[in-house]
């Protein structure tokens, strides 16, 4: 086992455990904390893929912004601890079936993958030399210009949606 594999196994196991902790906690705020740890592990995994910017964006956007929004929602709704008996009730059979089907599909797909060595222009050395942000910037704002501009429209929709949703209640 190489060191990289060792790290990968650590991240995979830790993330699975953390994900399980997130869905099994009774207090929503505890789930949030485990989710935070989960996001940090995701960022760590990105680092091992030589995707520094993605790791930073993961922390800034998911851990720094979206989870804060979750916390605000939890505080706004004043969610109490979930009752024990409500968990694992009606839907657990359906949930189990869906999970098993998804897992089978994953195994099927993943077994058909051949893993190749790094390909193409953007090798690890190239990205290291040029810098992660520079590489992403140059590709995103030339080759992927259209998706980028569409993203601005999506964000616009989100802004308007946020205000419209909240306006019904208070203003």
């Amino acid at each position, binding site marked *: 086992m190489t060191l*990289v594999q060792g790290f990968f196994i650590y991240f995979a196991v830790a993330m699975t455990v953390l994900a399980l902790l997130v869905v099994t906690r009774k207090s929503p705020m505890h789930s949030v904390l485990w989710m935070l740890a989960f996001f940090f592990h995701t960022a760590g995994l990105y680092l*091992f893929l030589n995707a520094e*910017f993605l790791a930073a964006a993961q922390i800034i*956007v998911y851990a720094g912004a979206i989870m804060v929004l979750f916390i605000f929602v939890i505080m706004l709704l*004043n969610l109490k601890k979930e009752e024990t008996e409500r968990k694992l009730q009606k839907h657990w059979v359906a949930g189990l079936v869906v999970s098993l089907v998804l897992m089978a599909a994953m195994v099927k797909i993943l077994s058909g993958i051949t893993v190749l060595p790094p390909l193409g222009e953007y090798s690890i050395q190239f990205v290291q030399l040029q810098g992660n942000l520079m590489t*992403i910037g*140059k590709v995103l704002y030339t080759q992927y210009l259209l998706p980028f501009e569409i993203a601005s429209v999506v964000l616009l929709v989100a*802004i308007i949606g946020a*205000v419209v949703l*909240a306006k019904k209640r208070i203003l």
Partner: protein
Amino acid sequence: MCIKYAMPGTYIPINYLPVAIIMLISSLIGLGALVVGLLVRPRRPYAQKLYPYESGNPPIGDPRVPFNVKFYIVAMLFVVFDVEAVFLYPWAVAYGQLGIFGFVEMMLFIVVLLVGYIYVWKKGAFNWE
């Protein structure tokens, strides 16, 4: 079925080792302070002492009081503008090589979001009365 993936597993982000170490050290400082505190701090509790502070009175009602939904709007807008800012960082770094083209496309991006910004402003979401 044969999907081709580039092999991920040969790169070690060695320049992040100090980051891991400093996070370890600082969490040890934090946790260590808590543990030492637990060991040496006196503890003589009684019911009144363990009330949450409410100016000396027994606390009334739910401590998690209902609050203005504006806090939620702020969090929502924060998510959107944070994503916008994240788009700006690689653009700023690569700007020297994108030239006038890069300027125009980012102006387009900013103008679209400015429309949303003005909408929010006009709807009064930035006013806290």
